[in-house]
């Protein structure tokens, strides 16, 4: 039967209850049951603007997880539907779209992708008791809270402390300058505080700290000049990938040798594209290993590349894992039970690169954080 002919019959049957009655009578009441209602999962992330690489890659990870579960028959026979919304990296917009998703009846939400948005929307999901699992929010502002906000990434404290120790012990840096983005204050300030505490405690000194707001009118070359004025041993950049790449380019115009290190936020594939040769030698800390030999990761990466024609990066991997966490909890959902409690009752999750478990606050500590360095346009794990 041609598709068009099928359209004709199917759409007709949907159109008219009377027609359905007629069809039932004519066919001896042999009609099938209506398809089960879909399970809706929301996604919120910055899918436009300067952090769009994180948001888009994350959304694609969610999409891949949902496509897979639907191919396997859905959640307890129910197809899964994603409702995706752009938070525009604006707290007000993020709150609005999260409320919209809740109104649309989502079972849970994946996202947001940045800490500032996480802090903005956490009160809303707590108020409505809707589970939210963030792939990449790492701020400690949301740590240790018995709430509905979960995440699959380690906190900034873990990353920044580890990075500071590496700069002291391996790079032998003692005088650091920092450039950080106040547009994602809850992440960047928290990151910087933890870095500073460890670095100073280890005998180092923060000689300059320069803040800016992403997308503002400030010249990046000026930010670089200010950071380098005091002659630091190294420069720490806490910013998204676009800003990090552009800042690296400005720093390299002024000083071709000074070591640069980045917060995990900026370490996406886009940093490599936009940074070009200026990001060669830059170090970054991540719990995500692009060279992982875990078969689950390798299979996922291949599928992601085939489907989206680009690397998943940490955002794609963690978004995929966040979605699977929710789907697993939904599969185990029992009548009258809270999805959050179901999730907490699951002892361990099989991640793409390693297993992980939530503590009672919905936080995760990933083992094996590593320092990567950019070599020949690629992240290479060094330590």
């Amino acid at each position, binding site marked *: 039967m041609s598709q068009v002919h099928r359209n004709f019959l199917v*759409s*007709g049957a949907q159109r008219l209850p009377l*027609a359905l009655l007629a069809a039932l009578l004519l066919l001896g009441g042999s009609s099938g049951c209506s398809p089960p209602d879909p399970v809706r999962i929301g996604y919120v992330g910055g899918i436009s603007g300067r952090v769009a690489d994180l948001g888009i890659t994350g959304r694609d990870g969610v999409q891949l997880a949902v496509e897979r579960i639907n191919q396997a028959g859905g959640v307890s026979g129910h197809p899964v539907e994603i409702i995706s919304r752009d938070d525009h990296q604006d707290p007000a917009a993020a709150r609005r779209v999260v409320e919209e998703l809740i109104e649309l009846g989502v079972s849970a939400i994946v996202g947001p992708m940045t800490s500032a948005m996480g802090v903005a929307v956490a009160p809303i999901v707590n108020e409505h008791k809707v589970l939210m699992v963030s792939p990449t929010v790492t701020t400690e502002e949301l740590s240790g809270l018995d709430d509905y906000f979960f995440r699959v990434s380690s906190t900034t404290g873990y990353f920044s402390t580890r990075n500071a120790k590496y700069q002291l012990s391996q790079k032998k840096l003692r005088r650091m300058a920092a450039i950080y983005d106040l547009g994602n204050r809850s992440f960047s300030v928290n990151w910087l505080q933890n870095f500073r505490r460890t670095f100073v405690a280890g005998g180092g000194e923060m000689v300059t700290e320069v803040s800016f707001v992403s997308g503002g*009118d400030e010249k990046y070359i000026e930010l670089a000049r200010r950071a380098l004025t005091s002659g630091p041993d190294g420069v720490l950049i806490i910013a998204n990938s*676009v800003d990090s790449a552009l800042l690296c380019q400005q720093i390299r115009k002024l000083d071709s040798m000074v070591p640069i290190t980045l917060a995990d936020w900026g370490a996406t594939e886009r940093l490599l594209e936009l940074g070009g040769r200026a990001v060669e030698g830059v170090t970054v800390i991540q719990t995500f290993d692009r060279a992982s030999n875990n078969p689950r990761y390798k299979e996922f990466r291949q599928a992601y590349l085939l489907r989206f024609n680009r690397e998943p990066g940490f955002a794609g991997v963690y978004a995929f894992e966040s979605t699977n966490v929710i789907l697993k909890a939904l599969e185990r959902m029992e009548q009258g039970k809270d999805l959050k409690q179901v999730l907490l009752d699951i002892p361990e999750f099989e991640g793409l690169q390693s297993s992980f478990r939530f503590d009672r606050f919905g936080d995760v500590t990933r083992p094996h954080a590593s320092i990567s360095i950019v070599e020949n346009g690629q992240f290479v794990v060094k330590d």
Partner: protein
Amino acid sequence: MASQRPLGQLLGIQMTFIAVIPLLMVALLLWQLALPRIHEGISVRHQVLAGSISGRITTLLAGAEHELESLGTYIETRGVQSQEYWCNLLDSHVGEGEIFEVVYLSDEGERVEAVGLPVSQNYKREDMLGLDLSLRPFFRRVKTGYASTWSETFLSTISGRLAIALLIPVEDRVLIGEITIEHLSEFISFKFGGSALLIMIVDGDGRVIADSQNVYSGQSLDTSQIPVLRQQSPGEAVSATAQVFFADHEYIGTAVTVGKLGWRVLVAQPSREAFQDLTETFWFVAAAVVIALVLAVVALVQALYHTGAGDSRRELRPAMARVDHSRIFRTGRPSADHGCGNPGAGEGIVGKRGEIPAGGQQCPGHHRPDRPRWNDRPHRGEGAGGHGHETGGRRGKIVVRPVPV
């Protein structure tokens, strides 16, 4: 041997045929004649619309290409000039950013030698000068072909918005114009946002560049599941109209390729809306036939209820006559039961024609104690021996069989 089939079933089959055959004929005609025409009409309308949008995009991009090529030619003729000279020249082509968001002139080292920016972005010039473009995906592409090249879509460094780049080699340098394409979404949603039509512009990777409902922009479609969006071979301008699904909604859609970019414009219409007239016609006919059938059945039941006794009697007369003959043989007198009719008919229980329930055997007002009862009658094989009729072995039951001719 004739099969045993109650008369009610025969009538039911006849009624069903009466109802179904016209319906099947209507369906067949709609299916084979009307549907292809409607489908063709939809396809043509979609193609016209998609072609119009595609043409608009092609015109816009062709204009940009022509402008950048002219600029490239001019730069070649100017030889060595100062950075300021080139920046002023490029700025004049960018203007307020109506078409180009930014124009770079890269040196042989793949660094930005000069940049043209919209007036509002002029403060970024110092940041842009000297930028290393070597790992930008579009730059890698032009290096392989080294001819005028359109890039895939990417996020603009300047605005963070979706953009494409056109690269024109200028001797050992490259002129790069970034064109933001976000306004395509604005244009489409403004133009078609209120309609039920779903218009999408999809790039070569299956990523939605723009959509009229502002829902799918930026999403990657699994084009392996959407045949109409599969990559067309070069020169193939129009793909077939086919069924597509978005968010569990079924559409009939037509895709048209946009020039040499490998993009496709998809115009899709909800199937139920596209075939609404036809399906309503069909299902109304179906409903009418069903209603007519139900009414006919009701009328039949009523007719049988009121006159079924006479009909049954006529039907049963030969059998009863044979029974009487056997009685005459046995008793030597005819039955007084003739003309009594089927005693059960008046009670409305001739559901299966020819079945006479035991409880309704007596003829009211004609009962005679010495008269033989139905259950006194000879059993099968006795008496008349059956020419198409037989008395059943069960108590008081007569099964009527069609008489073979």
